[in-house]
């Protein structure tokens, strides 16, 4: 790190306040914990909100246990489970129901149920005295609420005000994304990419304004983020055209309901946006901070420090994207390989799309560094308050 950058960091320290919790903050924390408790109680007792019958497991019994081996000599154990559960809603509320379940040691697509689990069930109408039914799925809403509540509490406890702003911006981003997809589905004839481009502009403007306020460096960060993301997307598009999409395996894509080529570009665009924004904001803050501290700083020195900071964050940011994309493929790759699929085939079916996503995002990140740097310097020196 350059001495100038150190200067920036030292200033960061001198500004800090070692504040203790004020009465207002304590009140807000208690309020937050109360909200969480209420949410947990509600999700634990919301059975009547569901139309589907829900049953809580009260007794389980393993009736059969078989060793299995498949064509590729994978050994597993398959269990049969008899379950007695109590119906929690609807007209049979309070009555017991008998269910059967088969599960394996692997649990790739099945599940062992234990006492206390809430299950969605479908009832068989023909039986009069003893209710029978089949398991449709697991009720997971209270677990998700608990994790979300814990996330919010930890972010507030550690992040304080900044934690609060991150939760707000996360929330706005979720609402925006759902809104954008609703618009896309409602309009019907517009391309997803066009909707995503508009959404990306909104995401960028709102998130960055929220994080660093309405000031010149935020404007620079917004412009650089947009240029960086779109240029990266353009590069990916040109590369795909040049190579006739050789090596792209859309067959490996999941949950596809519309032509995959269209959706892939939109995914790449949204996926890299967060990282690119992060880079733009780090560079603008550092460059502006350096300038504020030393208004006599030479053009050359500012550029040099900026480049150094860029080099420092480049590796870390590309890694974040890379890991979050690749990690999701692990279960599927294991399934392919265990089923005797050749390594090369497994690789291209599962990794090619994810790697293209990660590479395009990384190109966006790296491009954004010089774009942000030169734009910041351009804005600073354009102001004319320098002699």
């Amino acid at each position, binding site marked *: 790190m350059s001495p100038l950058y150190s200067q920036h960091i030292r200033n960061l320290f001198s500004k800090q306040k070692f504040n203790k919790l004020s009465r207002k903050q304590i009140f807000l924390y208690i309020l937050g914990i109360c909200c969480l408790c209420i949410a947990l109680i509600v999700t634990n007792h919301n059975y009547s909100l569901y139309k589907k019958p829900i049953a809580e497991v009260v007794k389980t019994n393993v009736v059969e246990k078989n060793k299995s081996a498949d064509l590729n000599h994978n050994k597993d154990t398959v269990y049969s489970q008899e379950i007695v559960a109590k119906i929690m809603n609807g007209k049979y509320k309070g009555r017991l129901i008998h269910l059967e379940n088969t599960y394996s040691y*692997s649990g790739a*697509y099945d599940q062992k149920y234990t006492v206390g689990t809430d299950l969605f069930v479908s009832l068989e109408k023909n039986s009069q005295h003893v209710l029978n039914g089949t398991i449709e799925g697991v009720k997971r809403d209270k677990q998700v609420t608990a994790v979300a509540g814990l*996330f919010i509490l930890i972010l507030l406890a550690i*992040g*304080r005000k900044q934690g609060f702003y991150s939760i707000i911006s996360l929330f706005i981003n979720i609402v925006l994304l759902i809104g954008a997809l609703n618009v896309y589905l409602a309009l019907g004839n517009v391309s997803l990419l066009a909707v995503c481009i508009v959404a990306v502009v909104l995401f960028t403007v709102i998130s960055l304004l929220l994080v660093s306020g309405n000031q010149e460096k935020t404007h620079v960060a917004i412009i650089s983020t947009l240029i960086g993301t779109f240029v990266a997307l353009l590069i990916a598009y040109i590369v795909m055209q040049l190579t006739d999409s050789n*090596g792209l395996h859309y067959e490996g894509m999941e949950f596809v309901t519309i032509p995959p080529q269209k959706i892939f570009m939109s995914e790449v665009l949204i996926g890299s946006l967060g990282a690119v924004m992060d880079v733009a904001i780090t560079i603008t803050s550092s460059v502006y901070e350096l300038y504020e501290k030393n208004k006599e700083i030479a053009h050359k020195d500012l550029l040099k420090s900026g480049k150094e900071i860029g080099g420092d964050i480049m590796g870390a940011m590309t890694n974040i994207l890379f890991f979050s994309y690749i990690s999701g493929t*692990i279960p599927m790759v294991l399934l392919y390989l265990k089923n005797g699929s050749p390594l090369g085939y497994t690789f291209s079916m599962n990794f090619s799309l994810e790697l293209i996503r990660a590479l395009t995002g990384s190109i966006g990140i790296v*491009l954004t560094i010089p774009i942000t740097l030169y734009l910041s310097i351009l804005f600073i020196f354009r102001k004319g308050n320098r002699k």
Partner: protein
Amino acid sequence: MNVLLLLALILFILMSMVGGKKGIRSFLALFLNFGVIFLTILFMLSIKNTIIVTLIASTIISCINLFYINKFNHKTLAAFVSTIITLAVLVLFIFIIEHHAMIQGFGEEQEEEINAFSLYVGIDFAKIAICTIIMGAIGAIIDISLSISSSMNELFVHDPSVTKKNLFNSGLKIGRDILGTTTNTLYFAFVGGYLTLIIWFKRLSYSFGDIINSKTFCAEVISILSGGIGVAIIIPITSWISASIFLQKREKANHMYK
């Protein structure tokens, strides 16, 4: 020419132009990381205790990203120790969550893709789910811990007489400043990968209740939130460990001086 190769070539040229030698090291680290993940998967095919495999893999990945890109010194050492502690805490946390939320393996939305395969393959997919979540967040966790420890080191160099408490508080402050952008980065990266899933839910008109209880959706949400929790808890952990390591170094130096 293959799309992947051409994009990798473009990235290499850009990284070496913008970042110089460090850029080239970062580029190589990406491939080393991919190699580690690939080897991890191969090991998981035969080794039953996949959690141990995950922990060893995360240790190697931390070594690559901290010691190879940034060289071995007390800054990267502090970041390394904090990363390992955070990951261990996170593994325990996800283990408990996974047990209750049952998000392992594949959801019914993936049925079409997996129905050609034998599903009784003898791997405990609950442990694989833990591995998946840890690997998804490890990049962000390493990034935050290094940012905090190197900024704390800058302060320590400029003010060697700083008290441990002040140094710790400074670490928290730096961490808070980057918390928001990092959780945002994770959010967009995950959402980008699951745009199709959200459209699927909308197309097939899932109700709110269907979505919030579906395995695929829950797995996704829990991944993002666990990553966010990891990114938050590493802030105090790194601040404390860096403060301890830096001050220990000072005491050692003082002792020798006397």
